[in-house]
């Protein structure tokens, strides 16, 4: 019953059966062979390569039919890789000289080869390790290794245990009702697993380093997403304790689910707009299920991280359209690309000493118009189908906003000439996530339709803390008095102007801060789907007098400790489950 500690990234307790994905050790039954068997094993390898190559050739043809398909290119390369005699020779040596079985030889060789990529300095090359894994799986399948159940086929409720999870794996998993939680070796507080798990409302613990080596499919696991604890095969005492906690949470969650169709309104009738944050179009329905009145933040980054080249205008348009159709007549805010060159696999990437303060996000977009224009075109075209709004991230000066608006007007003209339908005056928003933007919120507000406070980055920049740096991560907190005063300032400077204000950072979805945020003057909050019911519960349990009182008290505190303790107490008073 080992107890492991990692980073809890999505709260909740669950007790369930582990399902281990993508173990480093493939399910290879036999590793060594008798020397006489070598010719047979060599033949297995040859057949596996040929079968894999034929399969890839077919996939390539399937995708080649679709215009501009990057997958066709990738499969094209995989085809050449599988036709290359070199890998076969290396694998055959392992069989002849070390008496490995075909599957074991393939596995050993591919793993070594894959490791060379993980050790490279360029993120682009590190990403190629995934391609190698893809080829490896294909070869093992055709060599007769036991098939691993695909991610799509969760037949019973399980807790996923994996080395790392790619966004597309998570997308496939999130549709399943049998997903109880995530546990991974890698990952940090801001990884994809973290964001999506909390969006789904399932417990997740990441950064466990070697949990995949210690857990086998079928083991019983306790996952405590709040404390970052994972217990493998708990004893009867632990089992009883955690089962009780899990049951309790289920009851609370069921009660919260009943709030779905009730208004997000205080006891004295003040209406709050609750919106959802999403990474993928498929998450829209999940947000609506939880009671979201629209999408306040559609992060477009996944489109830029999936493949070898920037996403085409068509690909983006399809993704945005899918989201608009799912959200119906409710608002959908699409944020333009918010990555640094280091995260874009195909970017002309040069090492920056401080990527966080470097060429990323809107700055990158404005300097790469061939990439920015298609995104804006795709967003505008999608606006023909619903209430779409565009938001620019990391704005730090009014000139940036003006430039971005100018590019937007250029592509608008283009689209009009080409005969496309779109919203002529699409609402334009700015993410307030730099201290500069916060200080000059009034000036920005005069030239856009809405502002959204992005607390995640705003807190990092203001407190000068990198939350992914374990040495200082504990200094990152929304409860710091400076942050609260900053937010208060933004609201005061803009509330008389004709601009809508919202908050879309994690702080907006943290129930402990709800009363304060209402007291400070916010009326629109956008958050991960999983947080909507809890925040709504708090809203419905207070009056604006409570909010005002809490605000006044909090503004008098000098330390984040005082702020946090007070907010926790006040929140628990109105809802004991908080």
């Amino acid at each position, binding site marked *: 019953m080992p107890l492991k500690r990692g980073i809890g990234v999505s709260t909740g307790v669950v007790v369930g059966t582990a399902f281990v994905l993508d173990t480093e050790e493939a399910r290879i039954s036999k590793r060594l062979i008798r020397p006489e068997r070598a010719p047979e094993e060599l033949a297995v390898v040859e057949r596996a390569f040929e079968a894999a190559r034929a399969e890839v050739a077919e996939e390539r043809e399937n995708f080649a039919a679709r215009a501009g398909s990057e997958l066709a290119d990738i499969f094209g*390369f995989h085809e050449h890789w599988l036709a*290359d005699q*070199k890998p076969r020779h290396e694998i055959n040596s392992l069989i002849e000289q070390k008496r490995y079985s075909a599957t074991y030889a393939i596995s050993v060789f591919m793993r070594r080869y894959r490791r060379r990529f993980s050790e*490279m300095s360029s993120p682009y090359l590190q990403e190629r390790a995934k391609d190698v894994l893809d080829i490896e799986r294909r070869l093992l399948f055709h060599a007769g290794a036991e098939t691993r159940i695909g991610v799509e086929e969760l037949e019973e409720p399980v807790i996923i245990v994996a080395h790392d999870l790619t966004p597309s794996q998570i997308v496939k998993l999130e549709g399943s009702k049998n997903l109880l939680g995530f546990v991974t070796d890698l990952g940090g507080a801001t990884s994809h697993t973290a964001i999506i798990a909390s969006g789904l409302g399932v417990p997740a613990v990441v950064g466990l380093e070697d949990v995949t080596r210690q857990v086998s499919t079928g083991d019983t696991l306790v996952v405590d997403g709040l404390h970052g604890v994972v217990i493998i095969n708990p004893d009867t005492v632990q089992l009883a304790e955690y089962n009780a906690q899990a049951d309790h949470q289920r009851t609370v969650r069921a009660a919260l689910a009943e709030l779905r169709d009730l208004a997000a309104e205080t006891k004295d009738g003040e209406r709050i707009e609750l919106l959802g944050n999403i990474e993928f179009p498929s998450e829209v329905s999940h947000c609506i299920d939880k009671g979201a009145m629209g999408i306040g933040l559609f992060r477009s980054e996944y489109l830029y991280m999936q493949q070898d080249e920037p996403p085409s205008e068509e690909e983006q348009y399809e993704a945005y359209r899918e989201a608009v159709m799912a959200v119906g007549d409710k608002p959908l805010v699409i944020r333009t690309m918010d990555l640094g060159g280091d995260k874009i696999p195909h970017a002309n990437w040069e090492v920056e000493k401080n990527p966080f303060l470097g060429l990323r996000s809107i700055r990158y977009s404005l300097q790469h118009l061939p990439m920015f224009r298609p995104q804006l075109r795709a967003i505008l075209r999608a606006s023909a189908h619903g209430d779409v709004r565009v938001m620019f991230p990391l704005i730090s000066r009014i000139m940036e906003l003006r430039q971005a608006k100018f590019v937007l007007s250029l592509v608008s003209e283009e689209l009009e000439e080409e005969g496309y339908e779109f919203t002529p005056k699409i609402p334009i928003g700015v993410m307030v996530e730099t201290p500069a933007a916060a200080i000059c919120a009034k000036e920005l507000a005069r030239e856009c339709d809405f502002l959204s406070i992005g607390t995640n980055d705003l807190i990092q920049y203001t407190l000068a803390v990198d939350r992914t740096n374990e040495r200082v991560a504990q200094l990152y907190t929304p409860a710091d008095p400076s942050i609260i005063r900053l937010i208060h300032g933004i609201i005061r400077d803009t509330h008389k102007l004709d601009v809508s204000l919202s908050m879309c950072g994690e702080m907006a979805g943290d129930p402990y801060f709800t009363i304060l945020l209402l007291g400070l003057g916010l009326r629109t909050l956008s958050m991960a789907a999983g947080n909507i019911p809890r925040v709504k519960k708090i809203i419905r349990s207070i009056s604006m007098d409570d909010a005002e009182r809490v605000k006044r008290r909090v503004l008098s505190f000098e330390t984040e400790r005082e702020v946090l303790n007070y907010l926790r107490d006040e929140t628990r008073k109105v809802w004991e489950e908080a």
Partner: protein
Amino acid sequence: MQESPRHVEKEVRVLNSHGFHMRPATEFVTEAGKYACQIQVINGPTVVDGKSAMDLMLLGAVHGTVLKLVADGDDAEAAVLALAKLFEERFHVE
């Protein structure tokens, strides 16, 4: 009649804005496979077999990198000419 040199070297520059990624690598290995000579691609300390997709995958040269093509064999000159042209034409990707 002058014999074609059997050892040919040439420097080429990666002009593709996205570097020597999968599409260029595919085109390169397809072209290299047409020649009998041995072909190597050198990027600083890394030397890879230009006819092996497995090796080329490890090259990962970014935009602006200068690579060296080295060919040994009867058709070395023709090979290097054709491959260098691919680099100049940005592998027909852009």
